[in-house]
């Protein structure tokens, strides 16, 4: 699930690791700790769902930016569909339970 969240955060444009880690970390629950984002990003990259490029930054050394690939967009689109179905199913079951 965290992988798909990273893909979704990248739909608004490329980001560097620190930015992603802070965004996910601040929302809580999605990743165990900021550091666990990096193995996850490495996996997404190996699977061709994101790609990286080095950019100069205004402060400090160059940064590695992550951006969605075509495959990444496809993977995210299919997850969105599955997620809706899954969420609706769970919602339905939970609401049935609460009515009794």
């Amino acid at each position, binding site marked *: 699930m965290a992988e798909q969240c990273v893909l979704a955060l990248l739909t608004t444009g490329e980001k560097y*690791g*620190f930015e992603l*880690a802070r965004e996910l*970390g601040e929302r809580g629950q999605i990743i*165990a*700790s*900021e*550091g*666990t984002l*990096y*193995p*996850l*990003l*490495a996996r997404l990259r190996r699977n061709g769902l994101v790609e990286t490029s080095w950019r100069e930054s205004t*402060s*400090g*050394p160059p*940064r*590695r930016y992550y951006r969605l690939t075509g495959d990444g967009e496809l993977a995210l689109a299919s997850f969105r569909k599955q997620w809706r179905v899954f969420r609706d199913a769970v919602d339905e079951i939970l609401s049935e339970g609460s009515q009794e």
Partner: protein
Amino acid sequence: MTSRQSTREADNLVRRYLAQLNAALQGVDASRREEILAEVHEHIEQGRDGLDTDDAADVRTLLDRVGDPAAIAAEAGAPSQDSRRWDAWAPWLIIFGPVASGLGWIAGILILWASPTWSRRDKLTATIVSPAGLVALFFGLVAALSAAAGCPGHAPAGCTTRGVTLPLGVAILLAVAGLAAHLLPPIHPMRTRRQQRFTFTDQPDEPSTGPARRKPGPLGANA
């Protein structure tokens, strides 16, 4: 405490943290391990750039957010510590196993290949080069002995050297090279292992290391 001292303490914390992460990531292949280490390091440095005061307390909080090295390693698919408990035996079995009994050597090789501690290249080298070195050592010794006995060249009766007719110098060289080839590949993994042990023990003084540990300093208000 001056700010310079404080920064140095913060640097040490970061260095220790990265050493722990490196140790936890053993068993993940080298290129991925380096990538993760580099990125986490970069993350920490960027976090420190954003701190108002770059002192040890703030860096500790930052490292807490980065999280437990074991959790990062687990996310990276690193094998657990259990798969390494026989590591210490492997080099000794590979060195002395072939001489004592073939079974010892086989056990050593099995441990070597089952453990995530060593790279594929180290495993291959220890498996192939080490026995080849032993064979070279054996032939080198035999040739050296027969050369010393004056056998090569015009061999008198009783000198059945069966083709092992090398000049003494070459024979000795072969034996020495063989000995080195036999010993060095298993010893190299042993050193790798020791370095890892070192980074494991090189842990920061956290209260979690045990109640018996007393820590002087600003946080030393232990009841």
